[in-house]
C-alpha cells in the first residue's frame, strides 16, 4: 500500500512506522535497557459475525469530531483511493465493501469480518473463483438499493490504469483478462475500453462470483479495498465528478468536500445498522481539515481547549511534541503498529557479492539514522530482522536474524573485516538524499560517517523531495543502493514476498532477479493457504540466507493523539490509522 506521508516515500528517512502495541505505556522507559522489541497484533478472521455491530460499552451519541492532518487528501474516488488515509476514511466511514476489518479489543488487533457479503467469501479449490453473497436491503445514500451488478461496474473500473493510474493493480494482476504473462493488459478498464468487459465477474441472484486468471487466496482481503466497493453504473459516467461525491453505503456521506484540503462527513440516513456487522454511527459529523501545520496542530491537541477536546490527528506527533504530550497527557497518545517495514536495498546488479551486502548490514547506523530522521526510537521506529512482519501470515517462526545484529547493532570493525574478505575495501557507495529536506540531510551526514568508518567510500547524490521517488524508482539512476519502506496491503505473505523479490516487481528496489526464486513464488501462489504460508516462510528464510538481497532497517509505528473527550480511538494496524468507526464523544 502506498504510504501517505510524502516523505515516507523517502522511506527510512522521515516516515512514521510501526510501534508499541496498543494504548500508552507507563512512561518511565528512559533507561537504555528498554526492550525495543515490540509485539505485533495478529490478524484473525471471523466469518460468523452478524449485524448489528455490538454496542461499545458506555459509548454516547452525538457531537462533531474535528480531524487535523498536515498531509493532503489525495483523490477520494473509490477506484483510485490507495493511500493509507484515503483508503481508511473511505472504507471505515463511507464506502462499504464485501468484507471489512474491525478492531477486536480482546485480541487488541484487527480481524476480518463480513460486510456487504454474508460471509468471507467461498473460494473454489484452487482459489481461481470466489463467490460472495450480497446482503438484502443495503441502500445507497440516495435510497436506491445496492445491486449485485454494481460490483461488476466497480471491478471493471478497478481495471482502468489510464483513468486511475494511482489505483491498486490487484484486479489486473489476478483477475481474468488482467495482465497476461508478459504484463500486458488484456482488458483496459471501463473508461479506456468502454466496449469491452473483463468477463471476470458473474452475477447469479445475490451471488457474485469473481474469476481469476491465477490463484488468488487473498481475494477476501482485496475485497476490503474501496476499489471493490459497489458503484452504480448510471451514477458513474463521469469519474471526475464521481470523485467529488462518491455515493455512500456506510454510516457517513460526503457533505462538503474540497479536494486535498477539507472534507465534511454527515450521517447517512439510509445506512441501516441491521445490515452492518461492524460499523457504528455514534458521532454526528466529521470535520476534516488537511494541509495544516504539523507543529501547530500538535499544540492545539495537546493544549486541549474548547473544540480541541473533540479533535484528533492521525499524523504521528513530532518528536518534541511527543515528549511534551508524554508528560502532560500520556493517556491521550495512541501508540501502535503500522503496516510498514523499512529496508536498505543494495542494487544487486552492482553489489553482486552477498558478503558486501552483509558488510553493509553491519555498517548501517540503525539508531543513529532513526534519530537523525526524527523518529521516536521504540515507538515510530524499532528493530526488525525479518521481511514478513509480525501479525502477518507467513511470518517466520521462530524468529531468525540472518545478519545476527538484532536489527539495531552497528559494528564497523566487523563490516570492514567482511569487506576485506570480499576484497572491496574502499568501494564507492552512491546513494540518494533530498537536500531540501533537513532530516534527509542529517540522515545523509550520519550515513556518510558510518559507511566511511566501515571502509566504504560513500558518495551521496543530492536531489529534491519532488524528484526523490522518481529517481529512486528509475533503475538507471546511478546509485548503488536505495532505501525505502513497504506497507502491507493485507496481512498475508503475498503482500510482501512477490513485490519485494520477484523479478521486475514494483517494490523490488534491489533489482533482485533469480529464476529459481521466481519459480518458487509462482509455485507457492498455487498452493492452498496453509501450505502456502509455511512454504513462504521457508522461502523468505532461504532468500535471505542465500542471497541477502535486502537489509531490514526497522519497522514503523504510530503515535497519534486525540482530545480529552474522544473515546474509542485505537490503532487500525492494517492502515496504521485510527479505528474511525468506533470513535465516540463523551458529552
Amino acid at each position, binding site marked *: 500500500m502506498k504510504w501517505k506521508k510524502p516523505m515516507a516515500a523517502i522511506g527510512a528517512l522521515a516516515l512514521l512506522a510501526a510501534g508499541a502495541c496498543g494504548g500508552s505505556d507507563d512512561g518511565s*522507559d528512559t533507561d537504555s535497557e528498554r526492550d525495543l522489541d515490540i509485539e505485533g497484533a495478529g490478524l484473525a478472521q471471523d466469518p460468523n459475525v452478524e449485524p448489528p455491530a455490538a454496542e461499545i460499552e458506555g459509548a454516547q451519541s452525538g457531537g462533531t469530531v474535528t480531524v487535523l492532518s498536515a498531509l493532503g487528501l489525495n483523490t477520494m474516488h473509490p477506484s483510485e483511493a490507495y493511500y493509507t488515509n484515503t483508503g481508511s476514511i473511505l472504507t471505515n466511514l463511507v464506502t462499504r465493501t464485501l468484507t471489512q476489518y474491525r478492531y477486536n479489543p480482546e485480541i487488541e488487533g484487527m480481524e476480518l469480518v463480513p460486510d456487504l457479503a454474508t460471509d468471507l467469501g467461498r473460494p473454489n479449490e484452487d482459489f481461481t473463483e470466489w463467490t460472495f453473497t450480497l446482503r438484502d436491503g443495503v441502500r445507497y445514500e440516495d435510497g436506491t438499493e445496492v445491486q449485485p451488478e454494481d460490483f461488476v461496474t466497480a471491478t471493471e473500473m478497478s481495471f482502468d490504469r489510464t483513468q486511475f493510474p494511482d489505483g491498486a493493480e490487484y484486479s489486473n494482476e489476478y483477475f481474468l483478462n488482467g495482465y497476461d504473462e508478459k504484463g500486458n493488459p488484456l482488458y483496459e478498464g471501463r473508461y479506456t475500453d468502454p466496449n469491452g468487459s473483463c468477463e471476470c465477474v458473474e452475477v447469479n441472484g445475490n451471488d457474485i462470483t469473481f474469476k481469476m486468471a491465477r490463484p488468488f487466496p487473498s481475494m477476501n482481503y482485496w475485497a476490503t479495498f474501496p476499489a471493490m466497493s459497489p458503484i452504480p453504473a448510471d451514477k458513474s459516467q463521469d469519474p471526475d465528478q464521481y470523485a467529488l461525491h462518491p455515493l455512500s453505503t456506510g454510516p457517513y456521506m460526503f457533505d462538503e468536500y474540497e479536494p486535498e484540503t477539507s472534507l465534511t462527513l454527515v450521517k447517512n440516513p439510509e445506512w441501516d445498522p441491521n445490515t452492518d456487522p461492524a460499523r457504528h454511527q455514534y458521532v454526528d459529523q466529521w470535520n476534516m481539515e488537511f494541509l495544516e501545520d504539523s507543529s501547530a496542530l500538535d499544540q492545539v491537541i495537546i493544549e486541549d481547549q474548547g473544540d480541541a477536546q473533540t479533535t484528533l490527528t492521525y499524523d504521528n506527533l513530532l518528536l*518534541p511534541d511527543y515528549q511534551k504530550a508524554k508528560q502532560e497527557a500520556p493517556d491521550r497518545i495512541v501508540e501502535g503498529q503500522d503496516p510498514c517495514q523499512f529496508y536498505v536495498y543494495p542494487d544487486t546488479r552492482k553489489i553482486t557479492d552477498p558478503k558486501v551486502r552483509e558488510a553493509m548490514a553491519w555498517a548501517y547506523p540503525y539508531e543513529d539514522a532513526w534519530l537523525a530522521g526524527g523518529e521516536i526510537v521504540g515507538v515510530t521506529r524499532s528493530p526488525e530482522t525479518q521481511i514478513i512482519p509480525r501479525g502477518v501470515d507467513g511470518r517466520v517462526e521462530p524468529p531468525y536474524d540472518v545478519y545476527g545484529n538484532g536489527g539495531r547493532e*552497528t559494528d564497523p570493525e566487523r563490516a570492514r573485516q567482511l569487506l576485506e574478505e570480499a576484497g572491496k575495501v574502499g568501494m564507492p557507495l552512491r546513494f540518494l538524499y533530498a537536500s531540501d529536506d*533537513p532530516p534527509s540531510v542529517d540522515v545523509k551526514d550520519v550515513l556518510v560517517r558510518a559507511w566511511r568508518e566501515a571502509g566504504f567510500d560513500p558518495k551521496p547524490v543530492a536531489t529534491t523531495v519532488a524528484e526523490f521517488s522518481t529517481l529512486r524508482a528509475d533503475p538507471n539512476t546511478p546509485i548503488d543502493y536505495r532505501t525505502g519502506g513497504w506497507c502491507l496491503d493485507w496481512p498475508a505473505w503475498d503482500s510482501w514476498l512477490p513485490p519485494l523479490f520477484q523479478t521486475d516487481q514494483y517494490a523490488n528496489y534491489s533489482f533482485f532477479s533469480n529464476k529459481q526464486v521466481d519459480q518458487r513464488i509462482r509455485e507457492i501462489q498455487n498452493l492452498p493457504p496453509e501450505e502456502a504460508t509455511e512454504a513462504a516462510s521457508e522461502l523468505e528464510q532461504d532468500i535471505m540466507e542465500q542471497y541477502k538481497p535486502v537489509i531490514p532497517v526497522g519497522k514503523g509505528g504510530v503515535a497519534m493523539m486525540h482530545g480529552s473527550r474522544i473515546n474509542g480511538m485505537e490503532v487500525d494496524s492494517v492502515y496504521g490509522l485510527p479505528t474511525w468507526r468506533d470513535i465516540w464523544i463523551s458529552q
Partner: protein
Amino acid sequence: MALPPIEADEALHHVDEVPEVAETKVIHGRSPLRIAFERLRHDKVALVSAVVVLFFILVAVFAPLISKAFGVEEGIVENPSDVLDPTTSYGLEGPPFHGFTWDHPLGIAPSTGKDLLAEWLYGARTSLEVAFITAIAATVLGIVIGLLAGFSRGWLDRIISFVIDLFLSFPFILGALSLAPILINRWGQDAEKLDQAQFVSLILILSFFSWMYLARLIRGEVLSLREREFIQAARVIGVPTRRILFRELLPNLIAPIVVSFSLGLPAFVAAEAGLAYLGIGLTERPTWGQTIVDAQPHFEIFPLFLWAPLIGIMVLVIALNLLGDSLRDAFDPKTRR
C-alpha cells in the same frame, strides 16, 4: 553698477581683514571622507556598533580556533545514539534536560548530536562570508552600471535604465526557488561540488538582484554632477571619459556608496538566513538559517537551540544597520550636530 562709496569702503575693509584671520586660524582642506570619520568618532552608537561588528568578524575569521579552544567540532563527530537519549532524542549532557557543561556550552542538537556552539561559530562565518562577498559584488556592479548610465546620454542610458527596471521587476524569491532544484540536479552527484555551486550561486543570486538600487542612486547623482563646472572643465581640456568617471566623479559618490554597502550587509545576512529557512540556501555547511529551521519545533523544550542563531542574526543585523545609519548621517553634508 558700481558700488556706492561707503559699501566699497567696507568691502575693502573686509578684504584687509582676511590676512589677519588666515594668520590666526589655518584652514585645512578636509575631504568629505575625513569630515565623516571625524563625526563618526564622536558617535557613540557608531562606535559600539563597530565593536559588535568587529566581534562577529573576528568570530567568523577565527571560528576553527575558537571551537578548538572550547574543544568542540563542527558537524556530526560522534554517533548520535552515543550522545543522545534515544527516547527523547535530546542530549545526554547539557541543556535542555541537564546542567551546563563546558563540553558543549550551548548544548547539542537533538536528532544529530551536533555541537551547537560549533554550529553557531561556523554559522557566523557563513553569514558574514555571504554578506561581505555579496555586498562587494553588488556594489561594484552597481557603481559601474550607475556611472555608465549616468554619464552616457541617449540610447545607452535608456538601455541601461531599462535593464535596471527589468531586474527590479523580476521576482527574486521566485528566481531563487526555481534555481535551487536546477543546481541540485546539476551538481548533486558530488556533495563538495554541490556545496561550492550552492555558495557561488547564492552569492550570484543575491548580488544579481541587489545592484540596481545603488546603480539608480549613482545614475541620479552623476546626472546632477556631470553638468557641474569641474566636469565641464575636464571635458574641455580633453580628459578621457574613463578618467572623468573614476577620478572626477567617483570620489564625489563615495558617500552613497559607503552607505549603500553598509546597509546592504545586514540585508544579505537576513536574506541568507531566509533562503536557508526556505530550504533553498546552503545545505552542505552550517548556517544560522538552517539551525533556525531545525530548532523551531524544539522551541518549547529547548529554547536555547533557537535563541542562539536568532540572537546572532539579530545583534549582527542591528549592529550593521546602526553602523550604516551612522555612516549615512556622517556623510550627509546637511546633518549638523
